[in-house]
């Protein structure tokens, strides 16, 4: 009760300070006037009465001060005093304040920006309800060669999905999904949309509330049943203008009208997939086999079930799966035992984040270092400033200011500076986040969720205060204790100073240089990585002049496979006829396009295979005759395909160089050999060996690849049915690639064949390439910025120290010169001091770099984390720049006029 009263009164006093002052004034005035009136009533003249009343009352201001103290506002008062004083001091040295605040703003801004990314991407839970229960079903199959280095491990087959979904004990729900594209027609311009096909269980697992309508139900998953579809929020807005009556209407997807049943909420992504429409997978259960490992799986764990228990549950179900399904008559379902399929379930968040967390943490760490350097710099500035104010501090101490009060005053000043920096920094961070979003890698997960939220702003405030404390404590502790008598005694005279006086500043400068070295080494390693990446032959040439785009011919539009190939062939001819186009071709998937291609085993005629062992899986691609010439992919041995062979269904095939070497020793030995995918399939003769292609990005090993003709006898169906690849990437080589005029000609060329064919993923190969190295270039840019900031701040730091020490030692230099020291010697003396600091920084920095660059191993390519060349080069750069920074003050020292220096005092 009493405590509450007291606090309340204090709060009121603080909040209504001015009102309280006014009231206090009124109250005291009333007292004096009442007293005076009584005196007047006693016969005194009014004027005299007032004087007497005031006299009798005593010191009004003193009483007021006592009243304020009685209210408990004195702490706030003195704080306000300190704040006023602090801002006056900051205002008196606008140059210092601006430099310090800007330095801090840069540091805080960069940190806030990066933190908001780390916060949004790494720290915040996924935006699904109870996201901690969500998992991605991952499996590895170390026994299935060829899959071993495959990023996604072994995906699920539809039969596996049914077994898992129906027999598990560990999950509330489970589903599989796959991304794809589909053509939407029935509007002015045909459109290719991004799809996710989902099984039952996917939407239930994510359990995201819908914008409108309902989820796809199990009834929608019955093959041949009514066809239904859901829309993303973005597509709903774009296509239907957000009209709620869209639900219930039809959308023609791949030439089939489908009823729209629901719309997802804005920002919804299926794991990491952005999409326009959700289509049910509608597996035909009767036709499923064991194989078909092409589906990602997500599940929601039952409460309390651990990842290990869920793994064990999947392991238990694998034999059930093999016993329940078959790959057809005469096959052994237990061959998969040799694959040693092992479940590796992990949290969905990890699946979404992929390998980005390493890069983000490295960037956060380096930016944090920049902040430290910035703080060191400001601390240095503060030291200089406080040193200049030693007189004032000594006077204040002599007048009775306690040590605590002086420290508080100095700290308040630095905290104010920190907050100024923080405010500016928040503005910078706002711009920085936008910049990050603009230059950030497009494959950065959860990109759309990145924002400067309350947590990030809280981080800014915390960082501002912490940095203020950090750089404020150094001078506060150093000078608050200076003995008044000593400093007052030496008033106005600057002696030849002992080293003691700038030791703190030297230590700070050395620390800055050390941290700068660490950052520069990191940046250097990224540059070397980038160079190494650039040197890698990706398997295509002159990517800037290579136009790529995807076109799909659905079977609802064109039924006969051969017709599909004819249409594709016609498109190629039309494209090649565009003026300036050198050649054109197509392939089922270009390297680095970022989606999965089929994988399967092949058997060579001249090799012996034991039963029950599946040979390594190879990447399968399907090509048109002119593809390799267009893309600039070298044919190492043999020759490329011809159209005659395609239409003649000639059993010819091409293989990658690494596959040829693995199976037959040399590329030329491979030509003429025969291979097949299935026992029932004819033998295909190897006619060409193709250079290795960096399929999954330049950092990844080239997979062993088989290049089939785009039109073949059907692999799976009985009889002599044909199969053609319906969705292919067209490649066009032209100097005009990527220009708007050229793209118009390309569209006309395609539409003159069939006007309802949409063009998708229209890019130059350079864009595809850039995107695939985006993580590296993003990290490089960030580290480059951090390194440059660190270098500049470090240089300013060392320059400041040297130039200050030179100005302090003027007298000493004057005496030295007067006693006969040659100016060159003085110059050397100063430079030696700078080099000593730089070397100390380099040695300490090496220690830090040894420890820290290890953490970025996963980001490096073609360069060791302890690359000597980078270390030496960076060290040399740092020492050299430090020398330059010392040279200017050193010249000043050399030119000291002994007479002037001595007379100066």
């Amino acid at each position, binding site marked *: *009760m009493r405590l509450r009263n007291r606090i309340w009164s204090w709060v009121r006093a603080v909040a209504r300070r001015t009102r309280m002052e006014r*009231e206090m004034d009124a109250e005291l005035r*009333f007292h004096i006037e009442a007293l005076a009136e009584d005196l007047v009533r006693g016969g005194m003249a009014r004027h005299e009465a007032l004087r007497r009343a005031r006299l009798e009352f005593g010191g009004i201001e003193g009483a007021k001060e006592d009243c304020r103290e009685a209210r408990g506002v004195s702490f706030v008062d003195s704080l306000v005093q300190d704040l006023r004083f602090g801002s006056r001091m900051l205002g008196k040295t606008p140059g210092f304040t601006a430099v310090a605040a800007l330095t801090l703003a840069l540091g805080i801004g960069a940190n806030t920006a990066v933190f908001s990314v780390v916060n949004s991407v790494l720290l915040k839970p996924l935006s699904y309800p109870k996201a901690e229960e969500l998992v991605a079903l991952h499996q590895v199959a170390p026994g299935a060669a060829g899959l071993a280095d495959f990023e996604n491990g072994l995906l699920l087959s539809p039969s596996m999905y049914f077994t898992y979904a129906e027999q598990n004990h560990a999950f509330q729900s489970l589903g599989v999904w796959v991304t794809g594209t589909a053509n939407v027609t029935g509007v002015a311009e045909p459109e290719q949309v991004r799809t996710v096909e989902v099984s039952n269980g996917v939407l239930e697992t994510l359990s995201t509330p819908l914008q409108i309508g309902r989820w796809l139900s199990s009834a929608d998953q019955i093959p041949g049943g009514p066809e239904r579809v859901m829309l993303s929020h973005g597509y709903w807005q774009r296509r239907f203008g957000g009209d709620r009556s869209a639900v219930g209407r039809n959308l023609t997807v791949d030439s089939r009208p489908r009823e729209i049943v629901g719309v997802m909420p804005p920002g919804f992504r299926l794991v990491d997939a952005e999409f326009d429409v959700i289509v049910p997978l509608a597996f035909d259960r009767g036709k499923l086999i064991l194989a078909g490992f092409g589906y990602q799986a997500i599940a929601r764990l039952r409460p309390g079930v651990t990842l290990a228990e869920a793994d064990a549950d999947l392991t238990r179900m694998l034999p059930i799966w093999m016993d329940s399904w078959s790959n057809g008559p005469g096959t052994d379902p237990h061959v998969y035992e040799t694959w040693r399929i092992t479940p590796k379930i992990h949290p969905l968040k990890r699946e979404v984040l992929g390998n980005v967390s390493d890069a983000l943490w490295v960037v956060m760490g380096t930016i944090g270092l920049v902040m430290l350097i910035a703080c060191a710099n400001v601390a240095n500035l503060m030291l200089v400033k406080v040193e200049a104010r030693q007189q004032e501090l000594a006077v204040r101490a002599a007048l009775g200011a306690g040590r605590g009060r002086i420290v508080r005053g100095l700290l308040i000043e630095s905290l104010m500076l920190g907050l100024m920096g923080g405010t500016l920094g928040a503005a910078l961070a706002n711009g920085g986040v936008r910049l990050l979003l603009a230059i950030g890698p497009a494959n950065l997960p959860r990109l759309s969720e990145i924002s400067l939220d309350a947590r990030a702003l809280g981080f800014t405030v915390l960082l501002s205060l912490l940095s203020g404390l950090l750089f404020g404590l150094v001078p506060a502790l150093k000078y608050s204790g200076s003995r008044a008598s000593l400093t007052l005694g030496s008033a106005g005279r600057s002696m030849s100073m002992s080293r003691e006086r700038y030791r703190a500043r030297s230590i700070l400068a050395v620390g800055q240089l050390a941290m700068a070295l660490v950052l520069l080494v990191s940046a250097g390693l990224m540059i070397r990585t980038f160079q190494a990446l650039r040197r890698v032959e990706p398997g295509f040439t002159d990517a800037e002049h290579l136009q790529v785009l995807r076109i799909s011919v659905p079977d609802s539009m064109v039924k006969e496979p051969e017709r599909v190939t004819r249409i594709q062939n016609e498109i190629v001819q039309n494209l090649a006829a565009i003026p300036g186009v050198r050649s054109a071709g197509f392939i089922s998937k270009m390297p680095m396009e970022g989606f999965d291609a089929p994988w399967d085993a092949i058997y060579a005629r001249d090799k012996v295979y034991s039963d029950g062992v599946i040979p390594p899986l190879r990447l399968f691609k399907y090509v048109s005759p002119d593809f390799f010439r267009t893309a600039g992919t070298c044919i190492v041995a043999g020759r490329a395909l011809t159209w005659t062979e395609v239409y003649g269904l000639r059993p010819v095939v091409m293989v990658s160089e690494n596959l040829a070497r693995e199976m037959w020793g040399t590329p030329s030995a491979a030509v003429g050999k025969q291979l097949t995918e299935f026992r029932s399939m004819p033998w295909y003769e190897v006619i060409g060996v193709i250079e290795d292609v960096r399929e999954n990005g330049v950092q990844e090993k080239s997979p062993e690849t088989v290049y089939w003709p785009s039109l073949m006898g059907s692999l799976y169906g009985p009889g002599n049915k044909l199969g053609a690849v319906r969705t292919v990437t067209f490649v066009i080589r032209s100097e005009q690639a990527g220009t708007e005029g050229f793209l118009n000609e390309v569209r006309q060329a395609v539409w003159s064949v069939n006007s309802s064919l949409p063009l998708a993923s229209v890019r130059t190969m350079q864009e595809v390439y850039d995107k695939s190295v985006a993580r590296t270039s993003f990290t490089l840019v960030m580290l480059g910025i951090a390194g440059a900031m660190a270098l500049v701040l470090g240089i300013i730091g060392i320059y400041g120290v040297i130039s200050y020490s030179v100005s302090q030692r003027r007298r000493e230099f004057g005496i030295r010169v007067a006693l006969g020291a040659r100016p060159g010697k003085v110059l050397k003396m100063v430079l030696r001091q700078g080099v000593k600091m730089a070397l100390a920084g380099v040695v300490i920095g090496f220690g830090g770099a040894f420890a820290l660059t290890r953490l970025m191993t996963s980001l490096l390519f073609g360069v060791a984390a302890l690359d000597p060349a980078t270390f030496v080069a960076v060290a040399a750069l740092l020492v050299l720049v430090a020398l330059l920074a010392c040279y200017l003050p050193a010249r000043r020292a050399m030119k000291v006029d002994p007479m002037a220096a001595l007379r100066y005092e």
Partner: protein
Amino acid sequence: MDKKQMELLQGTLDMLILKAVSLGPLHGYGILLRIQQISRDRLEIQQGSLYPALYRLEHQGWIASEWGESENKRKAKYYRLTAAGRRKLQTEAERWNRMAEVIAGILESTPEEV
């Protein structure tokens, strides 16, 4: 020495103020007059120390204040005793009386008694 006197005075002043306002709400000047009146002018109160004491007592919750109109139609701040203040006054008064009794007893003792 000086300080001790102040403290003693302060403690007493607080009690006197509480007593003064216990008879009805008063403004600061009124309190001064009331104390002088009931002490029959035997107590000299430092006017400057009255207000800090009022503020302190209000801060502690013994008295409460509100603005009102004085006898001569002027705006004045009136203080009144709170419930807590009434209890406080009672205990203070008892303590004071006990103390006075003890001290009086000591001072009145004769050499034989010691």
